[in-house]
């Protein structure tokens, strides 16, 4: 693989020991990355959607709690 980046590979490819469990989910048509805080519940890390209107929805702001199908 060829990595073309300004971040040196030795920094980019170091694996941290602790990382929170995250999941990619889709809620009501909005795809997002969710950090799981419990079973069926999580906190939104970021949205993947390209629709600008999803970013105005107060329910999907980063940090908001959301119910996820377990």
């Amino acid at each position, binding site marked *: 693989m*060829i*990595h073309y980046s*300004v971040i040196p590979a030795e920094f*980019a490819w170091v694996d941290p020991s602790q990382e929170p469990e995250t999941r990619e989910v889709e809620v009501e048509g909005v795809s997002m990355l969710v950090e799981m805080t419990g079973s069926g519940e999580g906190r939104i890390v970021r949205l*993947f959607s*390209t629709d600008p209107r999803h970013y105005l929805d107060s329910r999907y702001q980063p940090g908001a709690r959301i119910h996820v199908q377990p």
Partner: protein
Amino acid sequence: MNDKTELTPQTNPAGQPPGTPVPGQQPGTEPQKKEDPKKKGIVDAIQQLGQTNIPQMQSNVHCLSVIGQVEGHLVMPAQNKTTKYEHVIPQIVAAEQNPNIEGVVIILNTVGGDVEAGLAIAEMISSMSKPTVSLVLGGGHSIGVPIAVSADMSFIAETATMTIHPVRLTGMVVGVPQTFEYMEKMQDRVIRFVAQHSNISEEQFRELMFRTGELARDIGTNVIGSDAVNYGLIDRVGGLGDALAELNRRIELNRQGGVVQ
């Protein structure tokens, strides 16, 4: 109010909490009791539908943000903020396919990443039939350069930078001359793509890529805002307003069936 009730016949028109007596109706009377199961159903429906907290306007422009590392075949460690190939490619396909989407704005703040994934995204954007405009904010480095130039019109913020440097091979390398040839081919793919999709020549781009004395720890050049425009790499210096105005102009031309150039 009447319009709204007509549009959403399922919701409680008066917007009252469950159990509140309806005006003109005596509480505790026979009809009230009779209506109870129906009322419960309405409340359930409201809970399931959730609250409408913003006007549901349809946006004819979609925004594709390329941030952090461009991730390809290998999943990068969690401390990297990544833009994943498997997210972006279907998003571009969806944008091309959806008749409600008339244009795409690509926002870049990337440090680079996988060559194959980056070139794939760039090729997908450049082959879209709908108007596309890219905007480099902060940084559009390394493999971000071909992605930035792949749009119909590219913008760079006054303060944004783009680092152009040679392609490097990471990981275990077989120490044979063929490895070097392969790498050169990969590099040529990037150079050729950038030259074909912007106003910079292959020679000029190569010169920027191999220039010494500009970067402290590397070979290459860091072009800032208007420098990128002067080299012909990016079309214009501008911000979000300029980028969206240009995109809307192209959408309008596209609607009229005119040739967008």
